[in-house]
């Protein structure tokens, strides 16, 4: 993974310009300013002469002007040579200037298709999100530590973990709302550095758990504000489509204060859709929604996946993650596991066949043995057997034949299924961090 630069490498006095309309951010910049001003004051006081004082002031202004000029030159604000392209900023297509179709589009046509949409991109495409050894501490408290993962473009990525695991802090960090303590990340192709905050936020959208709407404004007024903040031209068609996507078209002129929690959540989701983002961070998007509305959100996420939008989904609903996500990560301050649900199951649980018979078997050891592909067995119930096997497709027919040969009345035989919840609980339970009060 590419490691984004943490510093521009410019001299300290070029990192921040100073003076009129400038902001010296390094202590050295402030020192230069203060010393220059103190000198000017000292000259005026010592000289007790207006002429000398004026000369002193002019001198200070000249010093500051030269300082600014040198700083601006070194920082690249004034270019003396050919302009160098800056690919990480300038390679984005001007998507926001595109005029949307005037008609209201159906849900399935909400987001414009991206090249390489429909499925998570191939390995040749640049990933949507690369996180490497990212750590965030608040004083002595660690929100998350040494977290690394990569999300392919167009992937729906589930981020799971118990309360306080650091999920929301991770979203805020990748959304440039807070700064990581250490580690690196590349978001939508842009290194997560201090100077790239605005550019990154232009390409992503975040839907916080609390939608945070202006309750005295109407739904449309709320969305108009955010359309303006994303620099969307002719925002009304986009607003209409975003509202239609969450089935809120008829409520556009209602005050947000009059909406139920679930409807406010939907407004928050439509707001996240407005800017046609490359990556959407959804923090508990179905929180507070009724089952029908939650299903609509699921459909919307599936539609986003088909259209090539990368979705970073944090949720407590494990069945939701299992249904929607291409891969999931389980976080508990440290990353416990990342992968497809199937992969996580296989890595955590041995494969098993579950056999149920009408009456207890006389000699189970004679039936369940290595010759039928069974490595071991246990019985929680006299008629219920769990067989440890290596390959279910090979073992199931052999076990069935052996059972029939033994005269057993077989009621059912099938592979044991472990849900994502089993995986989650297994990982969290074995985590010493989780045992903390």
């Amino acid at each position: 993974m590419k490691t984004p630069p943490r510093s521009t490498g410019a001299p300290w006095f070029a990192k921040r310009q100073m003076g009129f309309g400038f902001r010296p951010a390094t202590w050295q910049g402030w020192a230069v300013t203060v010393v220059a001003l103190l000198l000017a004051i000292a000259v005026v006081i010592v000289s007790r002469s207006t002429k000398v004082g004026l000369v002193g002031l002019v001198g200070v202004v000249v010093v500051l002007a030269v300082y600014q000029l040198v700083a601006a030159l070194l920082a690249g604000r004034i270019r003396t040579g050919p302009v160098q392209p800056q690919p990480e900023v300038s390679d984005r297509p001007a998507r926001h200037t595109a005029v949307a179709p005037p008609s209201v589009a159906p849900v399935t046509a909400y987001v414009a298709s991206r090249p390489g949409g429909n499925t998570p991109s191939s390995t040749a495409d640049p990933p949507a999100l690369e996180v490497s050894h990212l750590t965030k501490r608040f004083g002595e408290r660690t929100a998350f530590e040494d977290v690394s993962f990569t999300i392919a473009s167009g992937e729906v990525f589930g981020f799971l973990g118990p309360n306080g695991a650091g999920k929301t802090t991770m979203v805020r960090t990748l959304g440039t709302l807070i700064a990581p303590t250490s580690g690196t990340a590349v978001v939508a192709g842009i290194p997560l550095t201090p100077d790239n905050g605005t550019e990154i936020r232009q390409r992503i959208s975040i839907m916080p758990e609390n939608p945070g709407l202006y309750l005295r404004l109407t739904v449309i007024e709320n969305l108009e504000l955010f359309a303006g903040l994303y620099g969307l031209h002719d925002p009304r068609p986009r607003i209409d489509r975003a509202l239609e996507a969450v089935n809120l078209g008829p409520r556009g002129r209602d005050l947000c204060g009059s909406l139920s929690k679930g409807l406010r959540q939907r407004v928050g989701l439509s707001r996240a859709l407005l800017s046609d983002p490359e990556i959407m961070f959804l923090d508990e998007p179905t929180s507070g929604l009724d089952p029908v509305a939650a299903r609509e959100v699921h459909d919307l996420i599936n539609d986003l996946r088909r259209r090539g939008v990368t979705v970073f989904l944090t949720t407590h609903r494990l069945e939701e993650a299992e249904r929607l996500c291409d891969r999931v990560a389980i976080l508990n301050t440290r990353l416990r596991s990342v992968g497809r649900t199937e992969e996580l199951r296989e890595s955590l649980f041995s494969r098993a066949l579950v056999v149920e018979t009408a009456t207890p078997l006389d000699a189970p050891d004679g039936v369940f043995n290595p010759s039928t592909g069974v490595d071991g067995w246990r019985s929680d119930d006299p008629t219920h057997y769990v067989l440890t096997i290596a390959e279910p497709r090979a073992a199931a027919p052999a076990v069935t034949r052996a059972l029939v040969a033994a005269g057993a009345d077989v009621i059912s035989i099938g592979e044991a299924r472990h849900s994502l919840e089993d995986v989650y609980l297994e990982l969290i339970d074995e985590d010493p961090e989780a045992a903390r009060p």
Partner: protein
Amino acid sequence: MKLDAGRLGAVVRKEFRVLLRNRFIIGTMTVLPVIFLITPMLEIFRLSPDVPASIVLRFAGSTFLLLLVIPVVVPAAISAYSVVGEREQGTLEPLLTTPLRREELLLGKAVAAFVPSVAISYLLFALVIICAQLFASDPAVASALVQSSQLVGEFLFAPLLAGWSIWVGIAVSSRASDVRVAQQLGTLASLPPLVVVALIDLQVLTPSVTLAVAFALVLLVADVVMYRVVSAMFDRERLLTGTQARSRRSHTTVA
């Protein structure tokens, strides 16, 4: 620093909309200044033509002082609410997730507080002048109020004082954890510039063009400095998590 006019405009529009929907704020903004002017308006009718010129001038001075209190007091509550109020409502985080720069957010909020405050100040000043011209029994009252120095002072100081009050209010709002504390501190902290005006009114300082220009320049510099200070104080991380970013080069202090 590059400011995007579209984003700035979006913030200003939103602020105006929220202000106009809040009858309590509108009521406070208009009623409070009117209360300030009850005494001077009564004086206009009360002063008889045989009153000594010194008393008329004193009346003009105190009216001028009251008129300059308006641009300080009116925006104080709005600006003090601006950041901490958004945080309490939960609307700050969605705003900060957008490409909006902190300077755009702060300037947008400042403009939305500045325009009505200065407009109300000018309107009430005009109202006092008109009342004096039409209804004052003593013609000297009207002429004392319509001196060029008074007019220049009002038009010069009202926006500068409003600017100071707004930036102090936003500064307090960026650091406070509670709306009520922010509004009390913001109002208190916006008052010091009025000391100079009060000293003029009390004739400790002799009003002159030089003094007015000097005071205006000082206020202008103070406004610019406060804007820079507020901009530097606006820390996304601290506002969202209550913890200050450790690095000066953090995202929270730049974008």
